[in-house]
């Protein structure tokens, strides 16, 4: 009688352990708390395990929309110092029946973000072996940032070119006006002295910069 009672008490956990150890529907979990948190790392103990089981139960509840999942449905075994273990999920209706792997995987993937945050970990430090982390959506821009910078630079270059060309044109125009003005004055001298060219032959003449682009004597 006593043996029967004892068996009844100890059977479920034994059976549970067998379910966990031998099953194909289990997932190995690995936590790297010290890597993630450094000095602020917390100790992994029974309470933390309790939290883990409850978050998984929560994930199963959300995924299946059944409020019947309880912490007793999450079985854990192969606990190591690394902080890694294996867990299986039993059906709330039948404790001996396991939830298939794909369903558990879906539940974990949908709620990975919540599970990570419960433990202050990330996809790299809370690993579910066999469940690849969902990739973050790539950032898409309406206009690529490099095109904006390119536009600014090209705009500045265009403004610079236009400004410099305009200043050259205005400089030339001013020089032309000066030259036109002076040549009128010069014509008077020619009429008085005959040829000015011989007087310009003297070294004492002042070199007039306004004519610096013209040759003194037209070459043959």
């Amino acid at each position, binding site marked *: 009688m006593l043996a029967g009672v004892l068996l009844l008490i100890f059977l479920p956990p034994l059976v549970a352990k067998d379910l966990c150890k031998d099953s194909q529907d289990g997932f190995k979990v*690995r936590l*790297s*708390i*010290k*890597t993630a948190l450094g000095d602020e790392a917390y100790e992994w103990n029974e309470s933390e395990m309790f939290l883990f089981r409850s978050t998984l139960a929560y994930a199963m509840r959300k995924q299946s929309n059944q409020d019947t999942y309880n912490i007793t449905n999450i079985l854990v075994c192969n606990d*190591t*110092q*690394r*902080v*890694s273990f294996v867990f299986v999920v039993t059906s709330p209706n039948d404790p001996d029946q396991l939830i298939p792997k794909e369903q558990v995987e879906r539940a974990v993937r949908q709620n990975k973000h919540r599970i990570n945050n419960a433990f202050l970990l990330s996809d790299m430090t809370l690993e579910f072996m066999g469940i690849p982390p969902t*990739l973050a959506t*790539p950032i898409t821009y309406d206009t690529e*940032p*490099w*095109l*904006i*910078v*390119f536009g600014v*630079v*090209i705009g500045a*270059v*265009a403004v*610079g*070119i236009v400004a*410099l*060309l305009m200043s*050259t044109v205005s400089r*030339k125009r001013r020089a032309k006006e000066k030259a036109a003005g002076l040549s009128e004055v010069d014509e008077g001298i020619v009429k008085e002295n005959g*040829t000015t*060219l*011989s007087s310009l*032959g003297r070294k004492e003449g002042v*070199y007039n910069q306004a004519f*610096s*682009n013209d040759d003194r*004597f*037209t*070459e*043959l």
Partner: protein
Amino acid sequence: MKLKLPNPGLEDRILSHDELERLEVEEAGDRPKWDNKAQYMLTCVGFCVGLGNVWRFPYLCQSHGGGAFMIPFLILLVFEGIPLLHLEFAIGQRLRKGSVGAWRTINPYMLGVGIASMCVSFLVSLYYNTIIAWVMWYFFNSFQEPLPWSQCPINANRTGLVSECERSSPVDYFWYRETLNTSAAIDETGGLQWWMILCLISAWGVLYVCCIRGIETTGKAVYVTSTLPYVVLTIFLIRGLTLKGSIDGIKFLFTPDLKELANPTTWLDAGAQVFYSFSLAFGGLISFSSYNSVHNNCEQDAVIISIINAFTSIYAATVIYSIIGFRATERFDDCLSGNILTLLNTFDLPEGIITQGNYQEAFHSLNRTSPDIISNLNLKTCDLNSFLSEGVEGTGLAFIVFTEAITKMPLSPLWSVLFFIMLFCLGLSSMFGNIEGVLVPLQDLKVFPKSWPKEVISGITCLVCCLVGLIFVQGSGNYWLALFDSFAGSIPLLIIAFSEMIGVVYVYGIDRFNEDLIFMIGHKPNIFWQATWRVISPLIMLAIFIFYFSTIVTKEIFYSAWDPESENFPTLEKKPYPSWIYVIIFLLAGVPSLSVPCTAVFRAIREYCCKKHPSAPVQEIDSESYKVHIQDEELKSQKSDQKFFT
């Protein structure tokens, strides 16, 4: 022994000392001038200090025995770099013409040297500005967080990362695929890459704005482009020294290995580096110094610029290797952490039981207990020295290694922007000299009509260079650039420099040259200059040329290709060049080199033909100007007669 080759008519071609003095006093002539000495010095420093100081010198230094490399470098700087620099400055200042004009003045048969300089400057400008376009692309892409080369993009199915990126690294992928979009071989053109065309246009546009009126505009631009690199290098040095592992990098760079001094390659590489780093034989330095006043102390300038160039090389090497030390340490840490994690996961050991410190003992004890499991793990060997000696130079250093280091620093966009602005300024200031070496000979050769303004000439030159430079923005552009770099910018320059020394010392005459220097700077150049100009530097040039020529002609030439289908991917694959490339190589290296003797031969033939058929006597022209000319000739002869009698 003063050998002097016959040089008839030299007196008629050059301005005498009195005429130079008069030109100086009256400020006559329409030659442009520097606004002040600082502009001239900054322009020359900018031309000499270029990308090579940042990405070639540190590699050479580290691979040829670190601190010991300084010995051949400094010796050859003194015996090869400074004399050649002084020579170019002096002839530019004396003859007051660009490279073509100067050589035509010295001897019309030496016109080929000027033309060769122009060709080399043109070819180098083409590909050098493409490098600037690449720098601008990276600069444009630095204004985002996270930087695009810090992570692999996700593939089309959103199931994982792009395979090419996963097998190599995010920085490699960004460089080879998203920047260059390189094809697997040089014969596959791969088409023009539109984003690179935009960057090329912006690079040539910026250059055009700075060179639009010649030194009038470049003189203003160099205040920024020549000084900013030093500011950025200092900022990077301070940042680098605060990073972990930087001191290891600097120590690795400068640890001397005196055995390397016995290796002739060390000396030849040092000589080549000194030569190319000074941007000699491009013709740009001759042009720049021709805008100086005739009594400028070119001897002092040459020494100062050489010292600045050497200092910049060493300074840049320190900065680069502090950052490389940081990157190597990060990689080493990552490698070791990866191994530790694998061991912890396999043996389910608690975290923190294996650290970097006790990794070796832990590994050995585990290996003893379960060697078969360990061998299946494929643990990587992590060696800091091997990471440090991943000797990278050239574009690989700037666009792969350094960008990777930047992604590991906090505030990476800021460092990226600073780094690429520095590279941009270094490249642009060197381009000013290259373009000067193209534009001034074009003017001297009267290719364009004199009535065309300078703006139009520089605009057309920039446009033509931009269009030809489209070769380098196709898929295989990177391979073409490497080709141009190896052949257009190496052998011809050595030939030109050698011809320059022979031309000045033996054709122009070292006696006349010494007198010119006495006139210009007030004292005769001392025995050091005499010895180096006459004997030592030409011999060094000859030795380097023979070495280069023999290695190129004897070895099979390969290029390194990025081929995702090759077996050793991501290592670059060495492929032989197709046979038609040898024609291109001959054109690149041969045309400038052969123009030196061919122009002389061509001119000799023309002279010979002219002697055989003398031209008809000049007819009396019935024009006012001719009459006035005759009148003035008579006046002149009357005056000279008077002088005799008074």
